[in-house]
C-alpha cells in the first residue's frame, strides 16, 4: 500500500462516515452541516484524482452554495424530520442492498482503477485533447479548452439549464417578495462590529478573487462556473452580514434579471457570430482573421464571460429567492 492509497482510504473513510451520519441523523440542521463536510471531503478526493477544476467547483458549489440553499429551505420548513417507520425503511434497505450488490457485480467489467490502457485512455480523443490542443487552441488548461471549445455546444446547453432553473425558482419563490419588515429598535451596543468590519474588509478581495478565477481559467483551475459562484458568494456574505435589504439595494433584482439572460445571449451570440462568419456554431477559429489560435482565445474568453455572468446572477437570485421568503418564524434549535 503506497502513501497515496493510504490517503485515499482515509478520505473514503471520512466520506463514508459522513454519508452514513447524513442518513441517520434526524436534526436537519446538523444534516445540512454534515452535507457541507461531505462535499468538502469529496472535493479533497477529486483533488487526489487530479480533477482540480472539479474540486474547485465542488468546494464552491457543493460545500458553499448548496449548504446555504439547504439552510435557506430549512428556515422556511420544519427542521426536524419524523422517525422513519420500519415499514418504509426495511423495503428501502432491501432495494438498496440488492441494487448495490448488482452494481458491485457489474463493476467487475469496469477497467481496473488507474490503469493506462483503459478504453478511456486509449480512445483517439485523448490524444487530440492532450496533445493537439496545444496547437489548435493554445490553452494550457485542457479542461477549459474542452469545456469551452471542443464541447462548447454541450456547455451552452448546461448554461441554458441553469438559466431555466433560476427562472423556475424565481417563479416559485419570487412572488411574495416584499415581505413585511419588522420594526426594530436600534441596538444599544454594537456587538456584531467584528463580523461587520471583517466582512467589509474581505468582500472586495472576494470579488477580486472571483475576477482572477474568471480570467485565469486558461492557465490554472478556474473558469466561468467557479468564478460565478465565488462572485455570488461575496454578495451572499454581504447579505448575511448587512441584511438582505442592503444586498438588494447594492445588487438589485432588476439588474440581475437582464444579466441572467445576457450571459446566455452572449454565449449564444458568439455561436451566431461564427455562423455569420461562415463557420459552424461556436467555431471560434473564424473570430480572428488569419489566426485560428487568437480566435480560439477570444471565443473562450467571451464564452466563459457569458457563463460567469449567468452563473453569478443565477446563484444570487436563488439566494434572494430563499432568503426573501423568510417570514420571520422561529426555528427550533437542536
Amino acid at each position, binding site marked *: 500500500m503506497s502513501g497515496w492509497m493510504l490517503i485515499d482510504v482515509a478520505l473514503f473513510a471520512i466520506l463514508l462516515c459522513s454519508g452514513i451520519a447524513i442518513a441517520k441523523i434526524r436534526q436537519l440542521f446538523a444534516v445540512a452541516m454534515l452535507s457541507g463536510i461531505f462535499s468538502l471531503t469529496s472535493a479533497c478526493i477529486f483533488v487526489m484524482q487530479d480533477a482540480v477544476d472539479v474540486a474547485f467547483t465542488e468546494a464552491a458549489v457543493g460545500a458553499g452554495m448548496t449548504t446555504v440553499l439547504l439552510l435557506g429551505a430549512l*428556515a422556511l420548513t420544519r427542521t426536524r424530520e419524523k422517525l422513519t417507520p420500519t415499514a418504509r425503511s426495511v423495503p428501502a434497505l432491501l432495494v438498496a442492498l440488492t441494487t448495490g450488490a448488482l452494481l458491485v457485480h457489474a463493476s467487475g467489467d469496469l477497467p481496473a482503477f488507474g490503469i493506462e490502457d483503459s478504453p478511456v485512455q486509449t480512445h483517439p480523443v485523448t490524444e487530440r485533447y492532450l496533445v493537439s490542443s496545444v496547437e489548435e487552441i493554445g490553452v494550457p488548461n485542457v479542461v477549459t479548452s474542452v469545456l469551452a471549445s471542443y464541447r462548447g455546444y454541450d456547455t451552452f446547453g448546461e448554461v441554458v439549464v441553469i438559466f431555466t432553473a433560476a427562472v423556475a425558482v424565481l417563479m416559485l419563490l419570487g412572488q411574495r417578495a416584499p415581505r413585511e419588515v419588522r420594526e426594530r429598535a436600534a441596538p444599544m451596543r454594537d456587538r456584531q462590529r467584528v463580523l461587520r468590519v471583517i466582512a467589509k474588509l474581505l468582500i472586495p478581495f472576494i470579488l477580486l478573487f472571483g475576477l482572477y478565477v474568471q480570467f485565469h481559467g486558461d492557465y490554472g483551475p478556474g473558469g466561468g462556473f467557479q468564478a460565478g459562484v465565488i462572485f455570488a458568494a461575496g454578495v451572499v456574505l454581504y447579505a448575511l452580514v448587512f441584511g438582505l435589504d442592503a444586498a438588494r439595494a447594492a445588487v438589485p433584482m432588476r439588474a440581475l434579471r437582464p444579466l441572467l439572460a445576457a450571459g446566455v445571449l452572449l454565449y449564444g451570440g458568439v455561436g451566431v457570430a461564427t455562423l455569420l462568419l461562415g463557420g459552424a456554431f461556436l467555431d471560434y477559429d473564424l473570430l480572428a482573421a488569419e489566426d485560428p489560435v487568437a480566435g480560439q482565445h477570444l471565443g473562450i474568453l467571451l464564452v466563459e464571460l457569458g457563463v460567469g455572468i449567468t452563473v453569478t446572477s443565477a446563484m444570487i437570485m436563488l439566494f434572494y429567492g430563499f432568503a426573501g421568503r423568510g417570514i*420571520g418564524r422561529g426555528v427550533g434549535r437542536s
Partner: protein
Amino acid sequence: MLLAATLGLLVAMLLALARAVFGPTLYDRILAVNSFGTKTVLFIAVVGFLAGRPHFLDIALVYALINFIGTVAVLKLSHYGEFGASASGEHGDDL
C-alpha cells in the same frame, strides 16, 4: 515528511467529524464544521506540494472562503431563524 503531515491532518479531520456527528449542541457542530474546513484547507495545500504541483493553491483559498461564509450563514440562521434579517435587529447585537 509531507506524507506524514497529510496523514496527521486526516486523523485530525476524522476527530473533527466525530464532534460534528455527536454534537451535542448545535454550536458544537458548527465549531466542528468550521474546524474541519480549516483542516481541509491545510490538507489541500500540503497535497499540492506532495503532488509536485503547488500552484493549485487557489483551491485552498476557495475552501477557506467558503468555510467562512458557511459558518456565518449557519450562525445567522440558527440565531434569527431567517437569512433576511438586517444586522441591526432586536437581538442583532449579540452575534
